[in-house]
């Protein structure tokens, strides 16, 4: 346990080392999640349009598409 707390303390620089990694992870994972989420929404919208087109319905073109 002593080893682990020494490691966490980062030689007294824990307040700089850990936030660096945390902020990097939050930003990169955040962008990944937003990108995935937008793609899913767009694909679902396209699928709805395809179905609507096949049945001859007017389609849901009033829906907003995410566009970052």
């Amino acid at each position, binding site marked *: 346990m002593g080893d682990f707390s020494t*490691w966490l303390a*980062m*030689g*007294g*620089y824990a307040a*700089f*080392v850990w*936030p*660096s*990694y945390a*902020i*990097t992870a939050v*930003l*990169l994972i955040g*962008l*990944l999640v937003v*990108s*995935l989420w*937008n*793609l899913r929404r*767009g*694909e679902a*919208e*396209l699928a709805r*349009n395809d179905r609507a*087109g096949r049945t001859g319905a*007017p*389609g849901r*073109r009033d829906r907003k*598409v995410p*566009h*970052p």
Partner: protein
Amino acid sequence: MHRFANPARFQRLAGAILPWSAGLTVLLSIVGLWFALVASPPDYQQSETVRIMYVHVPAAWMALFVYANLAVASAIGLVWKHPLADLAAKAMAPIGATFTGVCLITGALWGQPMWGTWWVWDARLTSVLILFFFYVGHIALTNAFDDPTRGTRAAAVLALVGVVNLPIVKFSVDWWNTLHQPASITRLDAPAIHPSMLTPLLLMALAFFGYYVTVLILRLRHEIVCRKLRALRLTQGMGAPAMVEQGGS
């Protein structure tokens, strides 16, 4: 080049690459983080803060690399009016902005304990901040017009203007006196860094590269979907299905 610029061919190629790039990103991140945070030694001058380097430097490399990609895509989009290149540029800018943001924030977190300041207005730091503004400007311009073609063109011109800034970022540490240390890896002689520190640095850089490829594919697919939806909307709106594929609308 044109062989890969066909959207259908891109989708096939991207589908083949995506599982590999995603898997390798996860694997390289885990191994890279192990080396960066556990298995590498503290620096004799900088102690444990040297570990910030393993995210800061790869983020900086990617910030420059993505901008070079953005400029090439913009040039292809402007000269050959290639719709996939335009969409690629649009997909790249937020990724590059994120890497630049990571570089600036981790740089501040490294500067405070080592230089005694979060920020100095010197050549390296200022030119990276300008790089960040070019990315943000690109994103803003792309979305600033009702007609997406106009936004894409304006953003592409901005991207090409910003290329001037790339060598300034790269060589600022050699051209001007600065607090920032010069390059350790890309020197003409051997790298001035011990293998125990070079290993996590290169692993994290590869992980960031894999992340870039993965997220770029996802974002580019999203742009292609949006383009299809815009085309569908136009055909439904005008009742003239033949008119829409022109001009990348």
